[in-house]
């Protein structure tokens, strides 16, 4: 019965009178009606911070997709060793600040001399893939179970609600670690990186669905009693139609908001698991794995620790800013 860290937060950043301010001067032509979508879009566009977050998010997605190309243009292959960049006595980069130079844009890895820039790009790929796909898994499960619980009620509701409470009251990180570590490293012909991505998506996605499920259930419960549902039913609509054509469109806003807000959490979890050594296996690059590699040398070479840490921070912050803005623009409570 815990609330998700974001569940009850309603920042009142966008004051309700922001919309009233939209009323044009008398000289302008008659006010056109606007759909809720348009209102939300306008609010979102005016929220500079949220737009900034969205820009960073888009940039990161583009970078992740173009990682092979960017690596070819500005970096070195992710598993190419550059021992000449490393001081053999200490195992640290010869050049200051982690070996940053025009050739190695973000420096080199201690001991091996692998290019940090390329590994960060591929790390972004892994991180975002896991975060998006697991958010997708959580959303699908959350919507299916949440809507069924809210709409069907009765014993279905009590069973699903009980399961959600149970999952939320669970040592999740510990369990994810344990679960991820007992699952096999390669299956269905996939190599270490992709099989781990599948495992991580499954585990993170599975533990995330109750957060979405609770919100969807609550919304469905209140929507179910509304007149338009009654009208649809009186015209002979059956449950699937009511669920998919009447209720789901009205649930789109909260689903979108909480899916966006679960992505940064997923990024943090993936990085945490990789940091603890049960996520993406080396030599595949991941931000959490790089931070964990930095533990031995950060006292003398902090750059190698700061770069992946800063990447996690920037990415998570951007998603949070965008998600907060989206919620302020769409949250039914603000309407």
């Amino acid at each position, binding site marked *: 019965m815990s609330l998700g860290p974001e569940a*009850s937060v309603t920042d009142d950043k966008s004051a309700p009178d922001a919309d009233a301010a939209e009323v044009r001067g008398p000289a302008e032509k008659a006010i056109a009606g606007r759909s809720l979508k348009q209102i939300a879009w306008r609010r979102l566009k005016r929220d500079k911070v949220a737009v900034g977050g969205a820009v960073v998010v888009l940039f990161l997605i583009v970078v992740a997709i173009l990682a092979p190309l960017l690596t070819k243009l500005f970096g070195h292959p992710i598993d190419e060793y550059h021992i000449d960049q490393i001081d053999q006595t200490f195992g640290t980069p010869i050049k200051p600040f982690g070996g940053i130079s025009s050739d190695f844009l973000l420096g080199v890895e201690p001991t091996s001399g692998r290019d940090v820039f390329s590994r960060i790009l591929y790390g972004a790929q892994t991180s975002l893939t896991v975060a998006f796909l697991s958010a997708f898994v959580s959303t699908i499960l959350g919507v299916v179970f949440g809507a069924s619980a809210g709409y069907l009620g009765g014993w279905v509701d009590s069973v699903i609600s009980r399961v959600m409470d149970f999952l939320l*009251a669970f040592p999740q990180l510990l369990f994810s*670690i344990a*679960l991820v570590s007992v699952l*096999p490293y390669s299956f269905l012909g996939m190599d270490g990186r992709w099989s781990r991505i599948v495992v991580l998506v499954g585990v993170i996605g599975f533990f995330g669905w109750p957060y979405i499920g609770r919100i969807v259930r609550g919304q469905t419960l209140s929507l179910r009693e509304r007149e338009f549902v009654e009208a649809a039913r009186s015209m002979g609509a059956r449950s699937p139609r009511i669920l998919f054509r009447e209720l789901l469109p009205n649930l789109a806003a909260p689903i979108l908001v909480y899916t966006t807000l679960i992505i*940064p959490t997923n990024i943090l979890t993936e990085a945490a698991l990789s940091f603890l050594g049960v996520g993406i296996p080396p030599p595949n690059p991941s931000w959490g794995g790089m931070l964990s590699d*930095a533990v031995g040398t950060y006292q003398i070479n902090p750059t190698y620790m700061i770069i992946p*840490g800063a990447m996690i921070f920037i990415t998570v912050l951007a998603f949070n800013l965008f998600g907060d803005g989206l919620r302020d623009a769409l949250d039914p409570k603000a309407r």
Partner: protein
Amino acid sequence: MLAYLIRRLINAVITLLVVTLVTFGIFFMVPKITGSDPALLYIGKTADAASIEGIRVKMGLNDPVLVQYGKFLQGLVAGRDYANGPDVTHCPAPCLGYSFKTEQEVTPLLLSDLPVTLSLAIGAAVLWLIMGVSTGVISALRRGSIVDRAVMTGALAGVSLPVYFTGLLSSAIFVYWLGWLPPSNYVPFLESPAEWFVQMLLPWITLAFLFAATYARLTRANMLETLGEDYIRTARAKGLGERTVIGKHALRSGLTPIVTIFGLDLGALLGGAVLTENVFNLRGLGYQALQAIRGNDLPVILGVTLIAAFFIVIANLIVDLVYGVIDPRVRLG
């Protein structure tokens, strides 16, 4: 109230039973499906067939899973005997079995890790409650001011920073660069309270920062919601001073949701702050958990997970009871 109490208690016991069942199932079934034999994990791959069979018999690994689970539960409640031919080892309740790696009894092993985790969790909890709630309340009261914006920006940054990064960063700065604090090396409280305090300072602040950020955001939102309620307007309208309005009326209902979250967060942490403990090399439950997972030490993994679940369930129970006292409406639900 008594009926409510009993209902919550039964709920807690059922949840714990389900947790043991799920945990047991995962840790003893999944390895079987994926083809690794717990007996081999225990004795090592080089052992001959006879000694592996001996271990199987001794640990009861040949029994059907439900029988194994039953024996495990029995061990938890009443203790259990491990028989290997003539030689019988008794494991007193609450028995969590023996470590595959060190052959130590799991229960005392985990109990010896508990003080470290307790030190970390309780110290951090005190800090983040003070930091988070006070900044959140101030932010709400001075909504829109520079203070509010600064606090909220800091809090948003705080929730976006992973603890394993802030931990490394803060020790890089305060230990290795400025040299204000010694490198991490846990000292028990009873040995030297002063050194214990100095050692725990950085872990406390790092962990508390993360939670304080969440709490500041939550407190602010709750306070703003409460301050918009009609009864606050009524209180002001009947001429009460601002101090009474805020102190007596707004804080009480503005902070009740915090009680829930606090109980659950603390409960979750008592089961082991896996990330913080590993960053700062604190040998608590979370550290032990990771070691066990890396070493495939199933009984220890099972034990830590159970203890963590136990703390969470107990915290849930306490929160429900406290809530029943603070907010009488809950009891009817």
